Structure formats: C-alpha cells, structure tokens
C-alpha cells in the first residue's frame, strides 16, 4: 500500500509539473493560434516521433509554411494543430480525438496509411472532411465519401510504374524488393505485380523485408544480383533505399533502380553520397529542383525553416493546405460553421474544382476521393532530379 501511495504521489507530482509546463506552452503558442480568432481549425496528425517521424515532421513543416502564407495574406485564416500519432493506429485514434476536442473543423492528415485507415473511419463517421497529403493506401478513401487524397494511391503508382517500365522497355529481368510490414510498400507491390504480369514484364525475383529486419538488406540485393535483374523496383522509402544503393555500389551491382514517391528524398538523406543514386528513376509528382517559381519559393522557405530540402511529403502537405484554402474560398466556408457543414461544402467543392499545386497542375478529384494528376518520371542526374519525358 505504501508503495502504491508513493507511486500515486510521484504521478501527481509529475502531472502537476506537466500542467505547469503545458500552461506555459500554450501561452507561448497563443499568438499564432490566437491571431486566428475566427480562423478555420485544421487538424493534422502524423508520426512526429519514432521511426517514421521524418515523414510526419516534413508534412508538419510543409503545412505550417502554407498556413503562414495564407494567414499573412489576410482574408481566409487558418489555425493548424499537429498531433503525434507515432505511426500507430491506436495513437492515431487518440490524436484524432484530441484534435476533435480542440475543435478541429477539417482534417488535413494523417500522414501515413495505417493510421489513416483508423482516422478515415472516424472522419467518415463524424462527417469531418479529410484530405490526406500522403496516405496513399487505396483502403483509406474507401471509408467514406468525404475522405480525399492529394497523393496518388498506391495501386496507381504500382500500375503506373509497371506501365512506364513496359512502355519504355526499361528492363528485361526485373527484381522487386519491398517492405512487407509496411502498408504503403506492400500496396504498391501488389498492384505492380498484377500490372507487370498483364504487361508481360519478366519479374525474376521478389524479396521482402520487415520493419524489424530492415537493418540488413544485403541479402535481398544479392539475390536480385544473382537473379541477373537489370531493373530493380524499390517501392519504399528513401532511408532504406539509401541502404540498398550503398550496398549495391559496394558489390558493383548497377541495374536501373526504379522507385516511387517514397524514394523521393533519397538525395537529402544526410550524409548520403548522391553519386550513388546516379541514374535512379522514380515516379514522383514533385521535384525540388523544378524551375517552377512557386516550387522554388517553397523550397527556399522550407530550407529556411528546417535547414533541409523539402521532399514530396512536404510538397503534398503544402498543396493540401492550398487546396483546402481554395475550396474554402470558393465554397464560402467561414470559421463559425460546424465541421459537418464545412464537410458538405468541401466534398462538393473538391469533386468539382480543379487545383494547381506544387505536385501537379490541373488536379481533379473523383467522387471516391481519388486524385487525378499525372505522375512524372524523373531520373537522378548529377545529383539532381531531371524530368524524363
């Protein structure tokens, strides 16, 4: 019993401490949030800590830039609240509820697919409009009519990749390495495999890894090499890609490496030698080296803010805010509307509007919530992305 009291006391102490901290914290934040009296409350949740934090923090930064820009213009005002979901379904539900308590009117997230599956269910249920920047799983938008994506769905990427390979005759013997514990990676692979078969591509080698054993990817690369693959498809994220490319280089293996949007950012992995990524092709809607003025401005601001070059996650996030802003303006959304009123307007706007953003021009959305924009193939040359026509 004594032990118990001690435990409770310690808890209370810490709680008290935290209450103190948190009150000061909110005070510090107040200006940003308060200036938006009458601002529309946007909620975002994503992995801000843990292994997937790099995506969550990129999205957060991208959104913050967009919100700052829009608020600075006057007129439509946004308040943004970012919650950590640790790339975990359970935590995502908690993050979502925390946002609801804050008074969120539009959900501009989550970042990754697995948590999005949970949050999408809630948003559909609560009639809160949801536009995810980067959760590309096809299951996400199946939860309701008010769930939208600004990124390609995974199947689209898989299909597009297979089509692209077939039409350009990029490789004769194809190897695939994917992360079977990751919804995004497994989702792309699944459709890619189906489409590749339809296109008559020769997949000689399919290797997987999981979040637990991705520390060592040498075996998978060696197997692709042994199978004589001259094209290796890497539908996963930049971190692991850096590993694959580094190891391939050490064993003198240089097929065409082909990736999807997750691969974007491989050049900005700190300490990675960009020379190793020479010749890597990827399908991505965004390239930080684009000559587009808006992109350049965004890249500059992002670098100012975070010190690193934005990847496609950040760009998607930036677009999400602008797309929402556009729909809000057109639909006449005001901050005093309820979330479900806004929801109805947003669904109507999104299914009818056309949006130009950093990650694509002339984007439109189907009633399912799926975006239609054209993927762009880029190849890495001299350490930068170069568009391939």
């Amino acid at each position, binding site marked *: 019993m004594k032990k118990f009291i001690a435990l409770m006391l310690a808890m209370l102490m810490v709680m008290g401490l935290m209450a103190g901290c948190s009150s000061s914290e909110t005070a510090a934040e107040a200006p940003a949030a308060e200036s938006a009296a009458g601002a529309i409350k946007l909620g975002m949740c994503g992995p801000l800590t843990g292994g997937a934090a790099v995506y969550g923090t990129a999205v957060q930064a991208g959104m913050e830039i967009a919100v700052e820009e829009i608020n600075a213009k006057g007129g439509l005002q946004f308040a943004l609240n970012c919650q950590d979901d640790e790339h975990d379904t359970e935590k995502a539900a908690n993050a979502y509820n925390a946002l609801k308590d804050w008074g969120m009117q539009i959900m501009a997230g989550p970042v990754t697919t697995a948590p999005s599956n949970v949050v999408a269910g809630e948003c559909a249920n609560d009639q809160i409009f949801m536009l995810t920047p980067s959760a590309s799983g096809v299951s996400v938008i199946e939860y309701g009519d008010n769930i939208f994506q600004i990124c390609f769905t995974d199947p689209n990427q898989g299909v597009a990749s297979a089509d692209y390979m077939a039409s350009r005759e990029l490789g004769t013997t194809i190897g695939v390495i994917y992360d079977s514990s990751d919804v995004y990676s497994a989702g792309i692979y699944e459709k890619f495999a189906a489409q590749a078969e339809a296109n008559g591509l020769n997949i000689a080698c399919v290797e*997987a890894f999981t979040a637990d054993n991705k520390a060592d990817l040498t075996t998978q690369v060696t197997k692709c090499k042994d199978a004589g693959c001259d094209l290796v498809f890497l539908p996963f994220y930049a971190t692991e890609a850096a590993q694959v490319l580094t190891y391939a280089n050490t064993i003198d293996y240089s097929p065409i490496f082909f990736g999807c949007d997750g691969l974007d950012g491989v050049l900005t992995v700190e300490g990675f030698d960009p020379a190793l990524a020479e010749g890597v092709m990827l399908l991505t809607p965004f390239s930080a080296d684009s000559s587009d003025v808006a992109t350049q401005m965004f890249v500059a601001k992002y670098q100012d803010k975070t010190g690193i070059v934005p990847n496609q996650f950040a760009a998607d996030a930036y677009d999400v805010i602008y797309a929402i802003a556009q729909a809000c303006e057109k639909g006449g959304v005001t901050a005093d509307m309820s979330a479900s009123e806004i929801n109805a307007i947003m669904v109507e706007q999104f299914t009818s509007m056309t949006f130009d953003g950093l990650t694509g021009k002339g984007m439109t959305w189907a009633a399912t919530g799926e975006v239609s924009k054209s993927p762009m193939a880029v190849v890495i040359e001299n350490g930068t992305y170069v568009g391939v026509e």
Partner: protein
Amino acid sequence: MSFLQYLINGISIGAVYAIIALGYTMVYGIAKMLNFAHGDVIMVGAYASYCVTSYLGLPAIVSILVAVAVCTLLGIVIEGLAYKPLRGTPSLAVLITAIGVSYFLQNAAQLIFGSAPKNFKSIVSMKALTLFGGGLTITGEVLVTIVVCVAIMVGLTLFTSRTRMGKAMRAVSEDRAAAQLMGINVNQTISVTFAIGSALAAVAGVLLCSTVPTLMPTTGAMPGIRAFTAAVFGGIGSIPGAMLGGILLGIIETFSKAYISTQFSDAIVFSVLIIILLVKPAGLLGKQIQEKV
C-alpha cells in the same frame, strides 16, 4: 558462389550482433540485469562518431575514440543514476528502469538530431575485395568488423582471466555476497562492467552504421533486441557464447532470407532460437546450473 556471398554477408551482420551481444552478456553476467537500453547506447555511439566526422571533419579514428569516450561516460552515468539505486531490488524493477532509459535516449536523440535519418559514412576506407571475377565481394567493413569482433572477444577473455579487475568481475558474477566478503568492491566492479559494455556499444554502433548506413534515433533498438537474442542463443553470461551466438544468428538470418523466404525470415530466426533453447536450455555455451536442494 552466391552461397559464399551470403555466408560472408551473414558473418558480417552477425559479427556486429556479436559485439553488441558481448556488451549484453557482460552486463548480464555481472549485474544480473537485462539492460534493454544497451541498443540505444549503440545509437548514441554512432551519432557521436557521425558528429565528429561530419560536423567537425575529423578523421575516422578520432571519431571512434570520441564515440567510445562518450558511451563509456554515458554508461557510467546511466548506471550511477538509474541502476545503482536499485541494486538488490527484483530484476524486473531494473528491467523497467532500463526500458525507461531506452525511451529517454531515443527521444533525446530525436530532439537533438531530429528524426530524419542520416546516412552514416563508413569509417572503413579499404576497398572491397573482389574474388572470382566479381562473383564474390568482401567489403572492407566486413573484414574490419570480423577482425574487431575477434579481437574484442580475445581481449575480454584475457581481461577476465588475467587482470585483477577481470577476476573481480568473475567473482561478482559467481557470487556477489561472497565476493563482497572477499573485499571486492562490488559497486565499483559493476560500474566498470557498465563502462566496458558501453565502450563496446560505441564500437558496435560505429561498425553497425558502417555496414548498414542508416542512422536515426531508433537505429539501435532492433539490432539491440537481435543481439540480446544472440546472447541468449550462445548462453547468456558467456563471452565466447555471445560471439558464437551473434555470428550464428547473422548466418541463420541471412540464409533463411536467401534460401527460404525473406517474408518469413523473422519467424524462422526466432523459431530456431526456440528450438535451440529447448535442446540446450542454457544456450549453446551456457552453463546449466543445477539448483541446490
């Protein structure tokens, strides 16, 4: 030929596991605690080395020394602040504290270095050996890791059998109370054990990240658990056991990926572990202690 390549890859990752496992096994043998924060000390070591080479531009060897120094200090501080006050309490209490320390280190690293992964530049500048006309590649990292691993094992074995401190460690590990009666400073011995274990973690961190170049706050967690498995596999508390366990685990992991299934390699590795423990309940080289009645 590919068989040899897999074998070498397996030994390479296994040797890293082995170095981590050596740290686990020493701490377990002497302090009788599962130090789940060990994997995160590895991560700290790797970050320390990364900072020295990338931000200060100093040579690799300096970075290793700095990493060892940082980790040794960290090990002593952790031990003194979090584990020492709990000496003599149930091992589970210390285990949970170790988990707390692990969370702390991971999150502290994220606050300091950010969550974006860093690509660790290998400290080995040796060119890879290519044999059989490109059929077999042995990278410099592999050679260095294996050599370092063997050197550490031999060094530790000599240390524990020849030096005064090493003998004290063995005495503490056999019977703490008796060792104390013999005038051995148990607290000091345990602190030194942590210092050595953490120094090993630094070396392991640098080698791990030289082999697998991704460095992020969670880098140490999974290899840490693997290495713990390896230590148990070889017989926890046994120095050669940790080495054998680590290398075997690496080979089994690589072979199950290469010849059975990459999808199920985790299941296969852990199944092998269970089977080994059923046949040899104290691990491959562990001592089976008969309880006295």
